[in-house]
């Protein structure tokens, strides 16, 4: 009897070991013999649940692929024309006039005119989605190829909106548009099998330089299924989390692209007691304490997180907008300093009176649950690593994976591992402004500081870009208050994540700009430069 089990266990082990050993092999031939097809298969994730309608948020981080934007950014982040050639701003900053190109057609052969631009922006305004156009008073078509935007207040960052909203055709827009988009971008949609794949084909009527790839197939796979597909030679380019960065895939190379795609802990800022209109509780007794938020910011060793969780593919994050022109370097704090953190906590009135290793103040224990979207391995690892880093200073964190639905209900009262990252300073306004408290995923912690609000409002209304940047910097830290760690510390930013891709060795994906947050396939923003090389 026992012998039978021994034999069975040995067989099982043998199978397992054989399975592990065969991993190094894959079905790819050596690079040189690999075909260079006109069809490119990508597994880069990021399937938009809402579909491909720019008026409800598709492509809000740029490069909507199916649609043209009025302007776009080159790899140096300079603004260049796309569907528009130029713009002029009136002296008071309230009136923006945009000249369109006259040779653009949608993929259904109708020309793109000022009417379509007006329709797009008016629809986006009506939809009141994540695309924020509340400051736009009116949009008028001055002629067939001239559009005028009248603003309520001057808005220095308005140009960024013009780089992210894709133009939809007025004549072909319907409820089904998000599923069957028609646009004037470099590609048109052929087939979308939700949760599985998206097939797109080159738009022959595209006015820009044509890409060398006739067809793109986007596969929507899990992290490890993507890797397996890459190893099997089924995909040409695959996005991987840093956990997989040490892999050796025959015939593929690792490409790390710098990004402002950041991860950090959003703290509910208000004390307990209130609730949202839907009845979800707002506020948290522990994280509403400044000492707790600042101490965590100081105690966390961000370099170690980059090294340990991101395998070195990333940078420490101190704000939502590190390294961007409106970043205030003076707001950076010295981190990885648990002693200073403990002193801060003691000064804030937190003591461990019952000797259980967790601090208390007025009967409230310094413990809370940190939520992260289940299934996101990097956010999970960050959450666990931070919890373990913070434990020695007397704050007890339980990390817990939840679905986005559940997070949407709990995020007003429990800290969440969230991520942002945009090339537009408007994002700072969204994340920190009290007028965005509880609006979607913007400012779920109900952070509010009048001084910060005023700086940000002034920055938005500034006509001059330099002046605007100065005000954005002051909103972060003006020497006495601010939204950064030195001030109110409503967030503990942790890391900026490099976007990692394995690509075929012969595939050149051009010079990539700094990537924004993952949604919307930032890597495809320069698809016209992609090509096979020897």
């Amino acid at each position: 009897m026992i012998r039978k089990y021994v034999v069975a266990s040995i067989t099982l082990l043998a199978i397992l070991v054989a399975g592990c050993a065969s991993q190094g092999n894959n079905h790819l031939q050596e690079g040189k013999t690999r075909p260079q097809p006109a069809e490119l298969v990508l597994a880069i994730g990021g399937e938009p649940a809402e579909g491909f309608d720019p008026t409800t948020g598709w492509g809000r981080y740029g490069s909507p692929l199916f649609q043209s934007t009025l302007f776009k950014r080159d790899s140096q982040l300079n603004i260049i024309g796309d569907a528009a050639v130029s713009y002029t701003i009136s002296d008071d900053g309230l009136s923006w006039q945009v000249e369109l190109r006259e040779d653009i057609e949608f993929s259904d052969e109708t020309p793109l005119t000022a009417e379509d631009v007006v329709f797009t922006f008016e629809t986006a305004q009506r939809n009141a989605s994540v695309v924020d156009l509340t400051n736009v008073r009116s949009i008028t078509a001055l002629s067939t190829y001239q559009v005028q935007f009248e603003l309520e207040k001057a808005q220095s960052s308005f140009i960024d909106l013009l780089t992210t909203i894709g133009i939809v055709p007025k004549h072909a827009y319907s409820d089904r548009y998000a599923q069957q988009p028609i646009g004037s971008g470099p590609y048109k949609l052929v087939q979308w099998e939700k949760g599985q794949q998206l097939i797109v084909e080159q738009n022959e009527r595209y006015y820009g330089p044509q890409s060398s790839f006739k067809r793109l197939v986007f596969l929507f796979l899990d992290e490890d299924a993507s890797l397996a597909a890459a190893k099997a030679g089924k995909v040409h380019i695959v996005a991987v989390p840093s956990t997989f960065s040490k892999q050796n895939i025959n015939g593929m190379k690792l490409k790390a692209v710098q990004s402002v795609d950041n991860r950090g802990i959003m703290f509910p800022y208000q004390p307990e007691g209130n609730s949202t209109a839907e009845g979800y509780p707002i506020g948290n007794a522990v994280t509403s304490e400044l000492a707790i938020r600042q101490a965590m910011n100081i105690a966390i060793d961000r370099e170690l997180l980059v090294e340990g969780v991101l395998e070195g593919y990333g940078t420490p994050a101190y704000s939502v907008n590190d390294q961007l022109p409106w970043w205030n370097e003076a707001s950076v704090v010295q981190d990885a300093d648990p002693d200073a953190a403990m002193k801060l906590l003691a000064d804030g009135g937190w003591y461990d009176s019952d000797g259980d290793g967790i601090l208390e103040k007025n009967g409230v224990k310094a413990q809370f649950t940190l939520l992260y979207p289940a299934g996101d391995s990097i956010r999970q690892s960050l959450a666990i690593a931070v919890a373990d880093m913070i434990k020695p200073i007397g704050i007890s964190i339980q990390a817990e994976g939840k679905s986005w639905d559940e997070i949407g209900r709990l995020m007003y009262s429990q800290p969440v591992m969230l991520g942002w990252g945009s090339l537009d300073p408007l994002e700072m306004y969204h994340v920190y402004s009290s007028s965005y408290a509880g609006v979607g995923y913007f400012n779920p912690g109900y952070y509010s500081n009048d001084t910060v609000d005023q700086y940000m409002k002034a920055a938005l209304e500034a006509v001059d870009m330099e002046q605007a940047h100065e005000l954005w910097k002051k909103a972060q830290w003006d020497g006495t208050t601010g939204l950064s760690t030195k001030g109110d510390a409503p967030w503990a930013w942790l890391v900026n994540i490099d976007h990692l891709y394995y690509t075929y060795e012969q595939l050149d994906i051009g010079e990539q700009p700094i990537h924004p947050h993952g949604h919307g396939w930032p890597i495809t923003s320069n698809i016209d430069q992609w090509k096979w090389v020897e």
Partner: protein
Amino acid sequence: MKRSYLLTIISASVLLVVPLLLAALLSSKGLLSQLDARNLSPSWNHLFGTDWLGRDMLTRTMKGLALSIGVGTAASISSAIIACILGLIAATLGKTADRIITWLIDCFLSVPHLVLLILIAFAAGGGMKGVILALALTHWPSLARLLRAEILAMKVAPYVIISKQLGKSSWWIATRHMLPHLLPQFIVGALLMFPHAILHEAALTFLGMGLSPHQPAIGIILSESMKYISAGMWWLAVFPGLCLFIVVRAFDMLARSLYSIIDPSRARQ
């Protein structure tokens, strides 16, 4: 023959005590992440290797197994008690009670076990509490049916009828005739529930059920390891999996050997 059974019982018990002892002895420091010691393959310092956060897999596995054994014990005992009570009621309290309980047993047995577990775990609000409750409330039907059948059969057994005719009290019959027959069934039935309960605990925690990722439950360890197997970190799954297998087998062998020893019908072997 009896000696070989005893030997099996002793070795199986040792196998079960080892993880409990190790779990108690190993410092819970190994559960904390240590980012500078991550992804280490098995070595003398880390017998089972470390995971992607530098947590010691030996500590996690042993604490996970101890938790599984604990949960399994709690679930088996409560399930056995439920089975015993329901079996007794069904067999002794008349036809209506019998019908209701038989119907209840059929109900529980007709729903796939895992579905029922998930339903109860969710209804109880998830977390460890939900898992334990689900395990405790779903493992009784087979044993209850067995006990009911045994009691029914014994009620019409010649020696019980004769005892009754000789004027023995019900209590006397129950304690002298029925109990010695039922006890082995009951003990073995309860013991055989262990491996089931442990495997189901692993299955439930594998699915998540709102458990914290800090919790070193064997199912969580296995489900997390799935992500890293494709990165070549085989030790994350192999050792915990093997340990789970050994513990479940040990319980199974223990129960079967015990049955062979205390089963009255085989007492003279």
